[in-house]
């Protein structure tokens, strides 16, 4: 391989990983934008979704891609219920309480997963796990390409929902003007729950797209969410295009710094750029000026 090919292949891998990061960041930024909280249970929810894919495959024999629509629906419903009947009522309208409730939830979920699956690392075997597509001189992993495309489709659907439907308009309305929204007849608690459900559904999709090439253990979600969090801050808190472009950017930076600095230092590039961007633009690349 020519050095150029190595570079291009690292770029491609970075973009593909970045798309999944973007999906995880999308859920985080959506919930932040509307509920004004960092959902601390995001990582544990991703882990749970990955175990759900694992269980569906290992015990029921369902392919991750086939499980995707069903799991997305189930996680939407779970997210909706948890926000509507656990987080919402427990928070008494106070944002810092919501924060603590999601933190508590994440501890419960992680430990439940630990109890159920122990700390072993698990993965699934799919026939296409190592299949590749040849593009010029590059060999791109098929499941990673699917993850890339799938993330974009979901982001586009989410954008359509937010931009073109009344529910999406209501979500954006509640994000900035709760009282005004209530006065046009928006049920604010319902919209909160829908938003939370959408965040969880994004994670279910991410899990289905990840599992063919990834492994799962009870703490895996946190690694993703740490990166997703930098993406959310980098892209601008609450910004959807910010999450998308930030995700791709971070994926590429991670991949390239892995290439040039060595695998173990891959993530150092992310945090260096993170600090540099925030020095120049404290509200992030796409953040609204204060």
């Amino acid at each position, binding site marked *: 391989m020519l050095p150029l090919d190595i570079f291009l292949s690292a770029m491609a891998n970075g973009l593909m990983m970045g798309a999944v990061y973007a999906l995880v960041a999308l859920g985080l930024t959506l919930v932040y934008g509307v509920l004004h909280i960092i959902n601390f249970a995001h990582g544990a929810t991703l882990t749970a979704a990955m175990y759900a894919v694992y269980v569906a495959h290992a015990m029921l024999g369902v392919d991750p891609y086939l499980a995707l629509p069903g799991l997305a629906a189930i996680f939407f419903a779970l997210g909706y219920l948890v926000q509507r009947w656990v987080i919402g009522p427990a928070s008494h309208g106070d944002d810092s309480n919501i924060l603590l409730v999601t933190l508590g939830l994440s501890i419960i979920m992680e430990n439940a997963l630990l109890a159920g699956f122990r700390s072993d690392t698990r993965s699934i075997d799919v026939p296409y796990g190592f299949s590749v597509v040849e593009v010029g001189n590059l060999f791109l992993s098929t499941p990673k390409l699917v993850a890339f495309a799938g993330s974009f489709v979901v982001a586009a659907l989410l954008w359509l929902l937010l931009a073109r439907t009344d529910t999406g*308009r209501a979500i954006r309305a509640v994000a900035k003007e709760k009282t005004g929204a*209530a006065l046009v*007849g*928006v049920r604010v608690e319902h919209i909160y729950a829908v938003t939370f459900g959408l965040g969880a559904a994004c994670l279910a999709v991410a899990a289905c797209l990840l599992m063919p090439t990834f492994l799962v253990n009870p703490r895996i979600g946190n690694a993703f969410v740490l990166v997703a969090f930098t993406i959310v801050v980098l892209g601008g808190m609450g910004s959807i295009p910010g999450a998308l472009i930030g995700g791709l950017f971070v994926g590429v930076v991670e991949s390239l710094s892995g290439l040039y600095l060595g695998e173990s230092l891959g993530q150092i590039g992310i945090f260096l750029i993170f600090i540099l961007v925030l020095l120049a633009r404290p509200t992030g690349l796409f953040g609204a000026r204060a």
Partner: protein
Amino acid sequence: MLEVRDLVAGYGGVPVLRGVSLDVTAGEVVAVLGANGVGKTTLNRCLSGLIRPGAGSIRFEGVELVGQDAADIVAAGLIHVPEGRRIFPNMSVLENLELGSYRRARPRRAANLARVFSIFPRLAERKRQFAGTLSGGEQQMLAIGRGLMAEPRLLIMDEPSLGLSPLLVEEMFTLIARIAAEGLAVMLVEQNVVQSLDLAGRAYVLENGAVAMSGPAEALRRDPTLMTTYLGL
């Protein structure tokens, strides 16, 4: 149409309304006047379900509203254009208006949009602009337009002239008169006493959490005690 009886409300145990009773009948414009902080906005919040009154009853077209949530009250056709406008700053003028028919009159959204744009041509010119970048007067027009999108049966307006220049205040009252002339019942909460009484058929004056004076606007305007009561002297 609207019958409020012995309404008691407050915040965290501090009473604001101590037994307010008033009526609005179909097609009339009723002004609610009172000094700053007397509880006019609190009254409106109770009517639209944003806060729950401590006691009393609110009947709208024969149905009890106390205990219903804001969305159901909107669905019933009681529409509240709030103090401070409460438009969606992050959304376009068009989207703000579209959301006006989120709960009610949704099938006639296009027709009502055309109607609102004919009442407020300024909004039509600026329909792609973010609502947060509109001038104060335009924002008020948008808030009223958003309310009209729901085809209100009763429109409550809380200080629609607040923060507008005298010329715009005049324009706003003309517009409200025009809307009311089409037969819409309006409850108008205002600081501009004289103009409100010109527009309204009847008026209520709140003082100390209760109705201190009420009657035909004509009579109140000539009442020498109005100003002293209104100013809380």
